[in-house]
């Protein structure tokens, strides 16, 4: 049978052109250039500004600490710029 990444035929795709995969399968983290945001948990006060400003929802707050989803982070640097506590720095990968 065809490999999982093979394209489907007209008989197999749902009617009406409705999408059938969530975009989180697309790891946009590979868009990043040289720099990636690194969080200093000591300085972080969990104000969540980085979370609300991230265009890619790549920053998570689980109730205890802030983490960065590098699978999706495009390296735009907005989080570093907006952090009021200088807790994020764009560093070479």
């Amino acid at each position: 049978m065809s490999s999982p990444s093979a394209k489907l035929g007209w008989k197999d795709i749902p009617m009406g052109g409705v999408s059938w995969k969530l975009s989180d399968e697309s790891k946009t983290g590979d868009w990043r250039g040289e720099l990636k945001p690194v969080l200093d948990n000591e300085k972080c006060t969990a104000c969540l500004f980085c979370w609300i400003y991230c265009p890619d929802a790549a920053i998570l707050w689980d109730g205890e600490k802030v983490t960065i989803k590098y699978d999706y982070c495009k390296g735009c640097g907005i989080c570093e710029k907006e952090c009021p506590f200088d807790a994020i720095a764009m560093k070479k990968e």
Partner: protein
Amino acid sequence: MAVNLKELSKKEELLASGHSLCSGCAAPIVVRQVLKAVEGKPIITNSTGCLEVATSIYPFTAWRTPWIHTAFENAAANASGIAAMLKVYEKRGELKERPHVIAFSGDGGTFDIGFQALSGAFERGHNYLHVLYDNEAYMNTGIQRSGGTPHGAWTTTSQTGKAVPGKQEWKKPIARIMVEHNAPYVATVSPAYWQDLITKVRKGLAVDGPAFIHAIAPCPRGWRTPSNESVELARLAVQTCIFPLWECENGDYKLSAPSMPYVKRPERKKPIIDYLKAQGRFRHLFRPERPEIIERIQKHVDKEWGIILKRAGLT
């Protein structure tokens, strides 16, 4: 209801990661903030443009909420049909809970080609929220000028050169125009001021009728700015008063908190030159220097700011 980020973080991301919007694009920042303000899942109509194209590349979708795109100029007309049909279900008692209906369109799909449908939807008074994410040009097709492009900006169809220095026309005051449709609620928002944005979206959704929200959405590619400055620019737009934040409920204008400091202490208002020199699309105003254009722009900013202050009863 207070706007608490930790509370909001508990809500599922209705715009998932993995979409193809540019690194540093403010449109998804606006959309994420809007969706955080909504209770439950809204039905979204989205006109053709950056947001639509980059979030729905078949067979993928970044939307965890019902979403439909049909064409460029008709997000408001699609929304009209949806809102009207939901009314039918409601009347018949077939709806457990009426979902919110939100139309997202860019400046193309709102100021220009989308204006007719928008105007018609508001005249008919459908119950929906129209959110304009304004990146000030037809960005998706390659940065062509729109009715929302500011005076003096470079775009690919308002190029700068010896003969003509960028766009000659002025930005269409779309939010004021929507106020004149007797819309129950109209507001301007900036993603830099998320508390103000989320509060206003909630107000717009609470209205039984059409509501309009104009969001400034800086675009690193089209504005020729670094990807990490989009939020800062959305803040600077408010601080220079080129994009004042206000709301208008049933004709009563009210200036919003982020813009208030510039009324009480006008000396704190930043000069427009700060905003212009931060963006590559205005670079031709500085090399060589075109002070007369910058002055013209400052005068216009002051005039428009004055209009809002007058309507809000602050002069």
